[in-house]
């Protein structure tokens, strides 16, 4: 098993790197750090269910880059330069000056849209990597008590969601076999809601009978100590980020 880092370390790294990437505002650096994040997840993935969330942040990142590029091409202020192609201009009323839909698409305009998209995507990927590699349960443990109480409720609510998706699939399958081809709100929602409700009640019962909330103070199993390795990662992040900001 890989030696665990302190749950906060990777978040510190992600936060500082993100600050650096934004202030340096360079596409190349943003792409490099996205690559680093992908590599990091590959190396440090420990098979926990949260690892799977990283592929979702990658998808969201690609989605953002695409949307930003499309919107940048269609709408916006014209940037002069090499013209790639031209799309028809949509006439806008005179009280909307400065905004243009369509028109000439220049290489400069395209690359500036892509550049912005990539910077935003880099944020998503960096934080995506941090959250995929740190179980929220572990993260919550190192946070102050009052956040913990709220947080654990959120985590449980979040863990109910994948279960709901699974139940939905199961119910749909069974109903297709009864010959119900149409997806009806009533045919699906009723069994699903009932299951979700009974599950949450069972979970509440289980937590209650295991003493949740009885003691004002809560101890921590296997506290996560801040190690030398964590300090090294944090210092490197601070230096790198400082360097990028200073540039």
């Amino acid at each position: 098993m890989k030696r665990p880092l302190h749950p906060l370390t990777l978040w510190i790294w992600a936060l500082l790197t993100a600050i650096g990437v934004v202030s340096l505002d360079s596409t190349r650096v943003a792409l490099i750090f996205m690559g680093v994040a992908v590599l990091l997840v590959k190396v440090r993935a420990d098979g926990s269910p949260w690892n799977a969330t990283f592929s979702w942040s990658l998808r969201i990142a690609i989605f953002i880059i695409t949307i930003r590029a499309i919107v940048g091409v269609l709408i916006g202020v014209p940037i002069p330069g090499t013209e790639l192609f031209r799309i028809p201009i949509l006439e806008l009323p005179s009280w909307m000056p400065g905004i243009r839909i369509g028109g000439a698409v220049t290489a400069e305009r395209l690359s500036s849209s892509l550049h912005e998209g990539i910077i935003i995507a880099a944020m998503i990927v960096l934080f995506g990597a941090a959250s995929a590699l740190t179980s929220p349960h572990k993260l919550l443990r190192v946070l102050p008590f009052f956040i913990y109480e709220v947080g654990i409720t959120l985590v449980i609510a979040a863990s109910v969601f994948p279960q709901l998706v699974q139940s939905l699939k199961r119910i749909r399958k069974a109903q297709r076999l009864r010959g119900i081809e149409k997806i009806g709100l009533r045919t699906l929602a009723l069994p699903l809601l009932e299951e979700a409700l009974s599950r949450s009640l069972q979970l509440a019962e289980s937590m209650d009978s295991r003493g949740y909330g009885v003691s004002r103070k809560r101890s921590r199993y296997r506290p996560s100590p801040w190690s030398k390795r964590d300090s090294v990662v944090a210092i490197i992040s601070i230096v790198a980020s400082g360097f990028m900001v200073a540039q």
Partner: protein
Amino acid sequence: MIKFSNVSLIYPQSTKTILEDLSCEIEEGEMVLVMGHTGSGKSSLLRLINGLVPHHTGGILAGDITVDGISTRAVKPGALAHLVGIVGQNPVNGFVTDIVEEELAFGMEALNFPADVMRKRVEEVLDLLSLNAIRDRSISTLSGGEQQRVAIAAALVMHPKVLVLDEPTSALDPIAAEEVLSVLHRLVHDLSVTVIIAEHRLERVIQFVDRIILIEGDGETSIGSADEILQRADLVPPIIRLARALNLSEIGLSVREVRRLTTDLRENVVAHPEQHNSLNKNVIEVDSLALAYNKKEALKKVSTQVQAGEIVALMGRNGAGKSSLLETIVGVSGPDSGSVLVNGVDPATLRGRDRRTAIGYVPQEPSDLLYLQSVKQECESADKENEIALGATFEFLNRLVPNISENTHPHDLSEGQRLALVLSIVLSSNPKVLVLDEPTRGLDYQAKALFSLALKEFAQKFNSPVLLATHDVELVAELADRVIFLAEGEIVADGRTLEVLLSSPAFAPQVAKVMSPQPWLTVDDVISALDVK
């Protein structure tokens, strides 16, 4: 340890009394079984012990329950967490964290145990339940038996004096069930933990228990030693039925005891008459079927046929590929290679009504098919869908389980009634093939007998095949003509029920164990063989 004094329980908006004037005392280190029909209030009784009833569920409670001197009226369930460990019917729904080790620590963290104590206790309990190998696995990837053990471990780690379990083996295959029960047995004997357990499959637990609380269903309860209660109860495991049918002077609780009582019987009887199945047309044809999920092979080149009028049981460990095979046969998941034909048609191509009339499917959770407000509405919608006489489905249901009020909401039915309703709806489209996925979870012996009768009738009347996946050996012995045994996605045995069940001790039904080497599986087999003689 636990003291019930004049306990009565009734739920509001219900006319049924769950318990009336129950008084009893359960000693330290005792193992007590709670039995009764489905829906008679076994779970309510169990949850009274740590106060979940009435603190969580509501209900009017009279009398008092004390655990180790603490009254459950006075404190909330959480305050008893160090004293009573409770494992629910469906442990998956009770897990709070996602890693085994964290789940074990959850209760101790809540009670603010120091870290070093927690570490020591987690190690202890990991060893006790042999969970060390899976300590940092994610809970959702574990098998049913492993999850059940994790749930028990999470309760035990608090060092409770009382352990309460609600149907701990109902979702488990016979081998995993035996594992769980032997752990409980050890806890009672080595650590003097008091264990209260509710279970329908009495044949699995009866030899371990000291006393039985029988809930009659109308508020009446009786408490006594296993012998006393089973002498007169109407829900009894096969060996007790055997003892009664043979008019033995006493009943035995374990296979060994009954074997001693029936030595002469086994020796003086001729072998079981052979039953020859006439050759029939193949209805389901499966040819070198392969299926994989996430690079894991679920089925490896499976080939088999099912003939008209045949009842086939699909058995095997949790995760052996039973559900995958059933789902491909009914056509919800397409195979990676190979083919499935049902009456010459690929089931994956069927839609809507055609699918319904080709294959009837009863899913693992029967309630997945129910979405209307009353039994009457469900039945009428089935009548309309299949263009049969209005009321025909309800009539069929009434024959299956009499006395269901047609205005009942489907979710207020007992497990057995709900299964009967779903079965009636599925059969109302008059399917050519019937497929069931673990239909008898949570059913008592009576409901199971009714259910087997309905399936047998269906198979005979329409000469249609029935295919069911199940862990229930006793049901298979009563019902199936043929058994297909799956392991790791491959068919390892396929043959007549008698041959397959007798060839493996873990899967042999009780009567077969008692009567070995005579080839009898059920009480009826024994009786008819004795009559021939």
